[in-house]
C-alpha cells in the first residue's frame, strides 16, 4: 500500500481498519543470492538499495532480535556531514544528499528536520581547528558557517557564555544538518526492502558461518541452515563475534554508549548543539524531550546498558553548557553497543574470503551514515567494486598506514 494524504483520509473514514502490515514475516527459504546479517539501519538499507538500485533479487536480512532493537533505535538521531578528512567528507555528504530525498524515495515519513548543527568552540586553538574543518567542508562543496559569539548570544541566549574554564567564543554551523526519527528510518527501509521482495527474518540469530573450499556457502542460524551466494555482515556491536565465525581478525572493539531523554518541554532548543569542552550533544525531539549524549563509557562492553559515573559526567557537561538543564528531569537512559574501530572511521570492504563482505566500525556515528552505508555496501556486494565515495573505507588501511583518524587519537578506540 502506498502512503499518501488520500490514503490517510480514506482509512480515517473506514475507522483505520484498512491498514496492512508494512512488511511480511516470511519463513527463511533454503537459499538466497545474498544474505545480510543484521537487521539494523545499515543492513536494511543495504537490502533496500541492493534490490532497488542494483537489481539483485532473492535477498534475506537476518536479525537476531526485532527490527529497531539495536543501535538504529538507540542513537540520538543526528544527521550531518561536517567531517574534516577527504576519506570521510564526500561519503557523509553523499549520505546527507540521500537523506534529503529519503522520504520521497521510501514513501515513508522519516521526519528529517534540517535544523542545523552548531559545534561550539571555547578557545582560539579550537576555533582555528573548527574553521579548518569548515574550510575542508567547503573544499568538498559542503557549506559551513562560522558563528561569532555575538551571533550565538542572540540565537542561543540560554548558553553559558562566560564559564570560567570553557567560555563560548563561537561555533561552526552546518545548516543542512539536523535530526531524523530513527525508528521510522528502520521501518521505512524495512518496508521499502520488503516491497522489493527482500525477506526480512526477525528472531533469527546467526550461530555459525559454513565455508567450503575457501568460500562461504551459508549460515547456521537459530532457524536452521540457510545457504547463500554472498554473505554480507552488518552486525554493528557484534561484528567481532560474527566475524570470528569466519575467522576474521578485525580492528574493532565493542564499547557502550549511553543516551538520555528528558521530560517533554516547550520548544527551547531549535538546533543540534555540541559542546567543545567535552563530547556533549543535544537536540529537542518533536515530542519536546531533550535528547542528549556524550562519550562512551571507556571500557569494552557488549552490555546494552551503561554505568552511572558516565551518566553523571554527561549531565555535568550538559549543565556546564546550558545551566537551565539542571531544572529538567531525565526520563530515560539507555545504552547501545558501538563497533569502535582503531581510527574512529568505518569499514566497508571485501574480506580475505571471496564472497564475504564487511560493513562495520561505525563507532558512534553510524546513524547519519545509514543511507550511504547501505548504498555503498550494496554497490560493493553487487559489483564487487567499491563505490567511489567509500574507496578509502578499506579493511587493510590500518596495516598499510592509511588510517582515517578524524580526531588524531591514534589506535585507541576508547578515545575516539
Amino acid at each position, binding site marked *: 500500500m502506498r502512503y499518501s494524504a488520500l490514503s490517510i483520509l480514506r482509512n480515517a473514514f473506514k475507522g483505520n481498519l484498512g491498514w496492512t502490515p508494512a512488511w511480511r514475516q516470511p519463513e527463511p527459504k533454503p537459499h538466497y543470492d545474498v544474505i545480510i546479517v543484521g537487521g539494523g539501519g545499515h543492513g536494511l538499507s543495504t537490502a533496500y538499495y541492493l534490490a532497488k538500485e542494483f537489481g539483485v533479487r532473492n535477498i534475506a536480512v537476518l536479525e537476531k532480535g526485532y527490527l529497531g532493537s539495536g543501535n538504529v533505535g538507540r542513537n540520538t538521531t543526528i544527521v550531518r556531514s561536517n567531517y574534516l578528512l577527504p576519506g570521510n567528507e564526500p561519503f557523509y555528504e553523499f549520505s546527507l544528499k540521500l537523506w534529503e530525498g529519503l522520504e520521497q524515495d521510501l514513501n515513508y515519513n522519516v521526519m528529517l528536520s534540517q535544523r542545523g548543527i552548531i559545534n561550539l568552540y571555547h578557545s582560539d586553538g579550537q576555533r582555528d581547528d573548527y574553521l579548518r574543518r569548515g574550510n575542508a567542508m567547503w573544499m568538498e562543496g559542503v557549506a559551513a558557517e562560522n558563528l561569532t559569539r555575538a551571533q550565538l548570544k542572540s540565537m542561543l541566549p540560554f548558553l553559558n557564555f562566560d564559564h570560567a574554564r570553557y567560555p563560548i567564543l563561537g561555533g561552526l554551523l552546518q545548516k543542512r544538518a539536523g535530526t531524523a526519527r530513527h525508528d521510522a528510518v528502520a521501518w521505512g527501509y524495512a518496508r521499502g526492502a520488503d516491497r522489493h521482495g527482500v525477506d526480512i527474518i526477525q528472531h533469527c540469530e546467526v550461530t555459525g558461518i559454513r565455508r567450503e573450499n575457501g568460500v562461504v556457502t551459508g549460515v547456521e542460524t537459530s532457524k536452521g541452515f540457510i545457504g547463500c551466494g554472498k554473505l554480507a555482515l552488518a552486525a554493528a556491536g557484534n561484528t*567481532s563475534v560474527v566475524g570470528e565465525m569466519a575467522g576474521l581478525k578485525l*580492528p574493532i572493539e*565493542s564499547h557502550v554508549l549511553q543516551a538520555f531523554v528528558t521530560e517533554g518541554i516547550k520548544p527551547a532548543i531549535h538546533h543540534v548543539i555540541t559542546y567543545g569542552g567535552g563530547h556533549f550533544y543535544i537536540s529537542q525531539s518533536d515530542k519536546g524531550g531533550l535528547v542528549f549524549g556524550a562519550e562512551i563509557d571507556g571500557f569494552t*562492553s*557488549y*552490555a546494552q546498558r551503561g*554505568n552511572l559515573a558516565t551518566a553523571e559526567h554527561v549531565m555535568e557537561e550538559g549543565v556546564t553548557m546550558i545551566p537551565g538543564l539542571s531544572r529538567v528531569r531525565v526520563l530515560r537512559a539507555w545504552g547501545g553497543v558501538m563497533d569502535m574501530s582503531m581510527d574512529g572511521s568505518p569499514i566497508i570492504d571485501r574480506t580475505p574470503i571471496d564472497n564475504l563482505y564487511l560493513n562495520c566500525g561505525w563507532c558512534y556515528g553510524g546513524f547519519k551514515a545509514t543511507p550511504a552505508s547501505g548504498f555503498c555496501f550494496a554497490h560493493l556486494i553487487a559489483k564487487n567494486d567499491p563505490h567511489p565515495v567509500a574507496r578509502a573505507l578499506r579493511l587493510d588501511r*590500518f*596495516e598499510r598506514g592509511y588510517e582515517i583518524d578524524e580526531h588524531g587519537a591514534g589506535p585507541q578506540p576508547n578515545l575516539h
Partner: protein
Amino acid sequence: MASLITCPHCGTRPKEEFAVRGDATPLRPDPAASDEAWADYVFVRANPRGRTFEHWQHVAGCRRFLVVERDTVTHEVYSVTDGAAFSRGRMA
C-alpha cells in the same frame, strides 16, 4: 560495570579512581618482527564477548597499571593483578 575494583596495593576502591587503557592480551612483538606482526599488535583486537583482560591504571591511587579480568557482558570482575606481575606470569 561493577562499582568496586580491588586494587592489590590500595584495597577495594570505587572504579572511578581508575582509567582504562585497553586490552592487556596482545604481546608486544620483537622490534625486528614483521610488519604484519606489528600491525596485528597495534590494530587487531580479539574483542571477546565474555571474559577479557584489560589494563586499568589506578590514577587516583597508587598509579600502578593493573590487569583487570572481567566479563564484557555481565561486567563481573574476576581478578585484579598488578601489571608487572601479570607480565611476569605470562613470560614464565
